[in-house]
């Protein structure tokens, strides 16, 4: 079976790669693109550890074929900090201790950023339902929800 040639953009940089037709975006990211920040917890779209955005839309990269990246913009956890400066969500997760083992953290942050891009003033319930596709077994979600709410409040303040 011939490999497919894909031209896409990952974290703002042009990227070309070859992939098998059945290869997932997650495998392409973690394999040949060397971006192991996205994690594989289930490969069935249930845990959200592989969350990325495709043209700004939150997706599970384990449920997306690598070939579907053709002509689109992919963003991953590796593109969240700008140079040496952490995104406010990343900083707030650290301050709130909103992570323990850290395996879900990449996906949580990518999902949270996608939420705040759509809704700068989410209620606790909105945060909880938005993040319901991202499993965390360590924290009980308490500090994660607080970190997201507080980041949203601070980002609103900064934007004023």
């Amino acid at each position, binding site marked *: 079976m011939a490999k497919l040639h894909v031209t896409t953009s990952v974290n703002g940089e042009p990227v070309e790669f070859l992939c098998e037709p059945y290869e997932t975006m997650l495998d392409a990211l973690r394999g040949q693109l060397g971006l192991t920040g996205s994690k594989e917890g289930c490969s069935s779209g249930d*845990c959200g550890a592989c969350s990325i955005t495709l043209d700004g839309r939150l997706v599970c990269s384990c449920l997306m074929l690598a070939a579907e990246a053709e002509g689109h913009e992919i963003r991953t956890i590796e593109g969240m900090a700008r140079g040496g400066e952490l995104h406010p969500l990343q900083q707030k997760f650290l301050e709130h201790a909103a992570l*323990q*083992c850290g395996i879900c953290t*990449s996906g949580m942050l990518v999902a949270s950023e996608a939420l705040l891009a759509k809704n700068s003033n989410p209620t606790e319930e909105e945060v909880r339902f938005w993040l319901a596709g991202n*499993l965390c077994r*360590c924290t*009980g*979600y308490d*500090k994660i929800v607080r970190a997201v709410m507080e980041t949203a409040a601070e980002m609103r303040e900064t934007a004023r």
Partner: protein
Amino acid sequence: MNVVNNKWIGQRTIRPDGVDKVTGRAAFAADTTMPGMIWGKVLRSPHPHARIKAINTAKAEALPGVKAVVTSRDIVDFTIEKGAVMLGIQDMRWMCRNVMARDKALFPGHPVAAVAATSEEIAAEACKLIEVDYEVLPWAIEIDDALKDGAPILHEFNKFDGKPSNIMGRIESKKGDIAQGFKDAEIVIERSFTTRPVHQGYIEPHACLISVAADGKTTIWSSSQGQFMVRAMTSMLTGIPQSDIRAIPAEIGGGFGGKTIVYLEPLATLLAKKSGRPVKMVMTREEVMRATGPTSGSKSTVKIGAKKDGTIVAAHGSFYLQAGAFPGSPIRGAVGCSFAPYDIPHVLSEGFDVCSNRSKVAAYRAPGAPIGAYAVECVLDELAEALKMDPLALRLKNAAKEGTKAAHGPVFPRIGYIETLEAAKNHPHYAAPLGKLQGRGVASGFWFNAGGESSAQVNITEDGNVVVTTGHPDIGGSRAGIANICAELLGIDYKRVSVIIGDTQTVGFSNLTGGSRVLFASSMVVTQAADKVIATLRERAAKLWEIDPEAVKWENGAAHPVSPNAGQFEPLTLADLAEKAPSQGGPIGASVQLNTQGAEGGFGTHICDVEVDVDLGIVRVIRYTAVQDVGRAVHPSYVEGQLQGGVAQGIGWALNEEYIYNKDGKVDNPGFLDYRMPVCSDLPMLDCALVEVPNPKHPQGVKGVGEVPLVPVMAAVANAVHNALGKRFYSLPMSPPKVSAALDAPTQQAAE
């Protein structure tokens, strides 16, 4: 205790590994590659119980791309007849048979062979070409099936009461005489309970990458709750000496006890040795669910007798726990912890270890204790109701305290159980009003906590900063706690302390990350090492000043003369002394290795509010408060995190999580969609109240905190459901179908 000024201890500092984990830079088990790496896959038994008559691997070996195949013939055998060979709490006779079936496959998912090939796809294809001649045997999944007359026996050598049996062992804790105790009782309540096996549910599947050089030097990159356990077990199962195995701890994506044993490492090592190539193995979620963990399902009966004033006079618990395919269920936790919060004169607590055709259980957060506490704390709730007593008042009346002799042996030193009950009673949550179809429950719990072996090095860098190396994989933020303590002791800024986890060949032996022992034990060795470093620093300053070391004190990160009488000298900072080190006796650092003692048990009391959707049978937890005696919260955020995480797991255990087996004896829900762990929208905020009764046997007063918070949860939820509905559930999970059925029952009866 040598707590100094608490500038750093008790602070919510940013964890040393934090930035790596919020940027995707942290390397977990599946995140590394090696040049020339190939992929390993496991062939697993499709049968719950089958004799393996022959295995033919010729076709698989002939497939292009296949580089190695291993079967049980390649693994060191620990024969049954020679008796137990223990590594910690694991018997290597069972471990060698769990990593690869020998004469019999004992559960669906039991490894039968493993293949390494140039791609995952070829390895999977090769597994299909392996011919296994099975003689399928009758099986037993549930405890009742395994115990009934004529049940299929998993381990034919085993006898209980003189007969072949699946009961692999019995233990008991005893105090006084229960016959007398129940005679003294004015009220007796006896109830039976069942719980289902639940998985630890770590999000990171087991994974490893292993390279074996031509001279046998082996490098293991894997995530586990103990790189030394990985090294020892891999050594024992492959015959490679420990000195040749460097086990490097990857960042670990959750463990909760489930990563205290090996599954893949011995297989990947043998595949790497045979093929001469580095071998990577990563489990799928389905493999994790079929072949690793979980904790036991159980059947328990608890009988408690009391006087009319609420004084408990006798208690009897019998706990049957599923071990899965091999002996070793956590009966010790159920037997020892269940009644430990109470001062009861007559106690008999007994546990039975029951094998059946499901995956071998692994440790899960306070192993066994939550199962026992669920039964005991629900019976206490009924007792309080029958006596018309407040359930916290009943517990306070019978609470264990300093001097109480626990049935499992120890006489308690100063403990903080009563403080947790008082704090719960006085918490605003306990007095808050409840709405319609809402209810409140309380429950308490105890866990032993552990000490044991730990090693650490504290080295001063040439530029006057600090590197601490410990030997415990950090799952929940322990590096942050260690950095707080080290900064405190050395009197320097927290950011100048770097904490790393050493591999097996660079730091001294350190036992598992488990038993709530890591911060207790590692801060003990780090404190002693820091004290040694400070002694060296004082000596160096004394030498430069030509005064006695006793005349030098270490304060705020610098050496000072103890008083003007000792001499007038400018302080010498850590950086000054580091710079002068080469001419003053050489590098500054110390390592300490200890078998730490003095870990005291921990107690918690929880308050849970639920609301029941009577149309859908859904129980929702709407408010939760966990109160716990934590000794000393070195990093309060991560202490709270332990409490909140334990509570969330307990809510899952209480309300939803269970394995569902089909008629073929196989798990029917081996994924996160159907094995329903709590998601963000299932839970409310989880409040914590930290009670600090310092552990007098620890330099900072630390007690283990990680496991206690799972112990009371299921009973707290069950008691709340009863309070909401007036109905009691005696089996977990209280899932929507079960709750709906119970709610419908009286209506149906009325209709009949």
